[in-house]
């Protein structure tokens, strides 16, 4: 029996998670009371800020507790910050949209808090079982959120599809963890690495099967081809603010775990390098080529998110400090400009009878010249044009790949970037050079949306021109781990 009294109980380690859960509980309690019901969003924001504060405190003080189940290091802190900012921006862009679509329910805020907490657990552990636990805490609220507009058929479809695919992926992941446990006798990554060279011939088979299954499980979550088939339908059907959350938060969480398991944990396993090479090429190419023919912007961005997962896989293939830090930097950059793009889409959809079709953008330039330029900025960032952060992110990934000798992979990546220019610039073409047949309904701006646009523009341009700070930030984070 484990002697509980000797385990290190350090609540400071999990204070960020505790504050988020506390906020979610308060929301659930006050949500349906008459007087306090309108403070749900405020409570969630407060919880996120408190959580952010506790996360910041942990920066630079790595620690471990709860019998090694929770490990706090700078790598985890960086990812926790990404998740918290994602949650914050999601709540801000959702405000107007939710009340318009009559979805402004307390559960939304509670689910965002729970899901973010799950991501934080994922990023902050070196134990496979705790990672799985975090993944489930993250995923179950996501399934509910995908089907949040329950009177909407597309949203229902999205929820069910995501649930079935997600459950399937979880089963793979769990089986993989069981195999690795069978081969090495532990689920703690650090101990698995230490015992790697002692594995017998017999247990090698189980070890490799386990690795493959873990890769499949997380591959589903981050939308790696050939496990991507759910992405377009789920992204298109879910309410747009939730799609924005999907495309950034869980993806970053999935990559946090992939980086931890495969770049640090199993970096010695030789077969992984060609595997990631193939996955990166297939993911980029399929994502970009399928995005070319989309007529719905949300669906286009879904395929584009697959393509971006492919770019991050290049960094994973390259490995080492450069590879991992470029992946972290790209995730931060992607979070910024993707959220910016989704903010504009939400404004477009919030008009009376608004949809997310490309044709909806016709004649945007004449009515909203500033907004058009903002949208263009985000599209340029997604395509990877200088001086945006999209360019710096891609540049950093490709240079990491070149440094490690992946010349063909870099070439294919650059070619894919060229393909992606077509569909990103098509958004600009439609909004600037095509005229609407009917009168263009103006969009409304709320302070929350303005704030999100301000933050994302600042990040996209600011980090594009002065990337040094965040680059250093993502690098120091990794030295602490290695």
């Amino acid at each position: 029996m484990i002697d509980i009294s000797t385990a290190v109980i350090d609540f400071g380690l999990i204070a960020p998670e505790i504050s988020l859960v506390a906020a979610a509980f308060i929301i659930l309690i006050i949500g349906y009371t008459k007087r306090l019901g309108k403070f749900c969003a405020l409570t969630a924001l407060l919880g996120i800020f408190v959580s952010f504060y506790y996360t910041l405190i942990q920066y630079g003080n790595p620690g471990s507790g709860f019998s090694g189940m929770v490990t706090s290091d700078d790598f985890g802190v960086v990812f926790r910050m990404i998740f918290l900012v994602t949650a914050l921006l999601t709540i801000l862009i959702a405000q107007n949209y939710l009340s318009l679509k009559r979805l402004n329910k307390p559960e939304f805020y509670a689910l965002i808090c729970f899901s973010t907490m799950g991501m934080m657990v994922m990023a902050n552990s070196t134990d496979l079982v705790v990672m799985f636990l975090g993944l489930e805490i993250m995923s179950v609220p996501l399934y509910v959120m995908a089907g949040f507009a329950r009177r909407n058929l597309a949203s229902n479809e999205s929820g069910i599809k995501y649930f079935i695919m997600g459950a399937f992926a979880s089963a793979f992941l769990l089986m993989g963890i069981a195999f690795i446990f069978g081969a090495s006798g532990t689920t703690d990554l650090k101990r698995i690495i230490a015992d790697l060279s002692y594995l017998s011939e017999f247990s090698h088979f189980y070890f490799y099967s386990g690795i493959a299954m873990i890769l499949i499980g997380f591959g589903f979550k981050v939308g790696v081809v050939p496990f991507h088939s759910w992405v377009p339908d789920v992204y298109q059907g879910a309410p747009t603010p939730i799609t924005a959350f999907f495309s950034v938060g869980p993806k970053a969480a999935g990559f946090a775990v992939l980086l931890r398991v495969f770049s640090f944990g199993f970096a010695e396993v030789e077969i992984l390098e060609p595997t990631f090479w193939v996955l990166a090429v297939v993911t980029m190419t399929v994502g970009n080529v399928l995005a070319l023919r989309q007529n719905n912007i949300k669906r286009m961005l879904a395929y584009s998110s697959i393509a971006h997962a492919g770019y991050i896989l290049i960094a994973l293939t390259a490995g080492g400090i450069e590879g991992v830090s470029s992946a972290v930097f790209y995730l931060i950059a992607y979070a910024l400009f993707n959220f910016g793009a989704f903010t504009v889409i939400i404004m477009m959809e919030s008009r009376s009878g608004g949809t997310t079709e490309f044709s909806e953008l016709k004649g945007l330039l004449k009515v909203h010249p500033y907004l058009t330029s903002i949208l263009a900025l985000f599209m340029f960032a997604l395509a990877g044009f200088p001086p945006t952060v999209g360019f710096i992110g891609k540049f950093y990934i490709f240079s990491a790949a070149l440094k490690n000798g992946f010349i063909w992979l870099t070439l294919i990546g650059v070619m894919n970037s060229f393909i992606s220019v077509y569909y990103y610039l098509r958004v600009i073409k439609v909004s600037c050079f095509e005229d609407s047949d009917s009168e263009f309904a103006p969009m409304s701006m709320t302070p929350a949306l303005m704030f999100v646009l301000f933050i994302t523009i600042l990040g996209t341009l600011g980090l594009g021109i002065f990337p040094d700070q965040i680059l250093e930030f993502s690098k120091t984070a990794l030295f602490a781990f290695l």
Partner: protein
Amino acid sequence: MFEVFFPILFLFVLAVVIALIMSGLSVFIGKRTKLGKKDEPYECGVEPVGNTKEPVPVKFYMVAILFILFDIEVIFLFPWAVISDRLGMFGFIEMVVFVVILLVGYFYILKRGALEWD
């Protein structure tokens, strides 16, 4: 041997007796209807014959799911109760936290109206 496993035997007997008492009581004092819905194979709000694309009332499932949730709470309480003297104050506080978490959920479903049948 017998002394060690006697509590388990006692539990079995107790379970059988309680079940017998419960079903026996309903035989003797319960109201009995022989016709109508009682004869249907599945009487929980779903019509057994008809169009399959009709909306299905989910009230029953709702109660069933909530029941399972709170049932599991009790399952976690059992092992704690068995060694609660060895876990001491720390174990007690942990269990209180666990129960409070579930209580929040209970309060939420009450407020949300998930337990109202009509």
